[in-house]
């Protein structure tokens, strides 16, 4: 199978993730879309690695997964705290950081 198809899939997943981040209000969903974008990138890395016969892309994919895991821990904790204090997980409600 032509590896370029994987790239198309990666681009599609990334676009879905980006649209979800921009459109959806629920913090959990936004968070999942961010993960989707990260994994779209991972897929692209792995594909390129395969296409160029070079392992660098696969290694970077592992790094990304580790970072994403760490991010999930911190991000989920924040979201849970916000939900506890405001009884809402909407990102638009948490808009106090403005002048």
């Amino acid at each position, binding site marked *: 199978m032509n590896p370029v198809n994987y790239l198309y899939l990666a681009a599609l997943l990334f676009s879905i993730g980006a649209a979800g981040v921009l459109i959806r209000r629920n913090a959990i969903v*936004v968070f999942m879309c961010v993960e989707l974008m990260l994994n779209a990138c991972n897929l692209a890395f792995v594909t390129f690695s395969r296409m160029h016969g070079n392992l660098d892309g696969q290694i970077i994919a592992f790094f990304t997964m580790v970072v994403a895991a760490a991010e999930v821990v911190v991000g989920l904790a924040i979201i849970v705290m916000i939900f506890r204090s405001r009884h809402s997980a909407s990102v638009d409600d948490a808009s106090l950081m403005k002048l």
Partner: protein
Amino acid sequence: MENIIGLLVALPLLGAAVLLCGGRRLDRTGHWLGTILAASSFVVGAVLFADMLGRSGDDRTLHQFLFSWIPVGGFRADVAFQLDQLSMTFVLLITGVGTLIHIYSIGYMEHDERRRRFFGYLNLFLAAMVLLVIADNYLLLYVGWEGVGLASYLLIGFWQHKPSAATAAKKAFIVNRVGDMGLSIAIMLMFTTFGTFAFGPVLKSAGDASEGTLTAIGLMLLLAACGKSAQVPLQSWLGDAMEGPTPVSALIHAATMVTAGVYLITRSGAIFNGAPDAQLAVVTVGAVTLLFGAIVGCAKDDIKKALAGSTMSQIGYMILAAGLGPIGYVFAIMHLVTHGFFKAGLFLGAGSVMHGMNDEVDMRKFGGLRKYMPITYVTFGLGYLAIIGFPGLSGFWSKDKIIEAAFAKGGTEGWILGAAALLGAAITAYYMTRVMLLTFFGEKRWQPTPSPDEPSAEPAADSAGGGEMPHPHESPKSMTVPMIVLAFGSVFAGGLFSLNDSFLHWLEPVTGHSHGHSPLSALTVTLATMAVLVVGVAIAWAQYGRKPVPVTAPRGSLLTRAARRDLLQDDFNHVALVTPGQYLTRGLVYLDHSVVDGVVNGTAAAFGGLSGRMRKLQNGYARSYAVSMFGGAAILIAATLLMRAV
């Protein structure tokens, strides 16, 4: 012997320090301390003088090196003194006449509660002036020069509770600054030209410099001399300086301050000798001022201001003589010394008259005082005869020599200068006779003092005016004795100096001397001087001696009215300098407000407004920030791709 030169300055300086820092506990004895220190400075001067006389003419210069003041690379300023015949003459005049004025002030300032401070200032004045004349380089001279300016400011404004005195002091200080500017520029020019400003090297190598440089230095020195010596165009402070106590006027006019300019020009003779244009400027200033001062002196009714005009005029003679070059230096200094005696005597006499007349200064309200103040009358009279050049008295010998030297300048210039000097002599005779007649002769024109703020000791008979009639009386001994001593000087000094040309031989090794070729014989000049003297006295007699003098001044001719206003000097300054200066500063203030501040404030306002708009972008919605991030990333990627495609 040279080790004690520093004492000449140190003693009065010590007096000033002790009196000014000593506080009230010195109030009772301070004036004696000041006087004794001034007198001991004179004694040191006399000892040095005696020592100097014991050596031959070319071997008389003494040097004392104290310490290196500012040694920086090639720049080196020393605190070192040089005492030669010229300095010696000044030292004796300054400390001698200064001491007499100290003694006089003991009586004159007796009722002033700030007398201690007054003596402190007087001592400071003496110290600064002595430093000025014994410095061995121009920078140290400048220190003394500024010290004199400071002391004159403090003394002219001594009665600072009077706004007029405070203003006069400021005026004197500011006008003097203009001259000081000239001196500092001259010193800088000297340093760039000669690499030093010690008298010895500068004056020795003056001949090597180009004439243009010497002219520039000379003109700057002349500006300095104009400020300190009250010469046109910087003379306007002298008349107002009469606001100070009378002993101060005597000190400024006779021994210190105004003589500094003459000293500077004579000391810098080598520079002027190489710059004929600068010399021409000097003689022009001298000739103009001697007529200017004389005319002002004719119109003033205030006895001190009349004498101030006279000082201006007499210093004009000295500057004129100093500008003539080697034919005139000696006579400039000789006239300076004789003038020191009779002008100090005249001022102290005027002070004595005011002392007896409840501080009245208007001569039209004097009259007939000779019976009431015999000692003042005689001493003032001798000073008067000396200043108009009565044969045999001091002024006769010195002024006659200057007029001769002016003619000896040669050519048209010589005739013009000689004629100006002769005319000045006639006017001098006129205005001094006027002062004499108005004050001591004629009927009494005394007026009750309008507001007796200082009640006199004896109860006054009430007069029609409601105020007190003055009770003229002779002044105390502390005041009359200095006047008598000065009167002796006024009578004999000139003759003594001219005996065997002793003064000429005394100063010649320092200033040099050459006889010009006068188109007129000495006898002719003397006779002409006598003739104009008689004419001047006769006119004054006809105007003020034969007929009664009105108490209120008549309106007078246009010239009289102008002369009463110092020949419109202040008006000229106001129109030519003050008003444009005010417009300039107003313009600059406007420029500062609109342009400089405008740029700064405008920039700040622009950024403020911009940030006001920009901050609206910070709306706090995470998703809108995400949009900006995506947008930015998209633009970056698009740009990168575009660049790659190109």
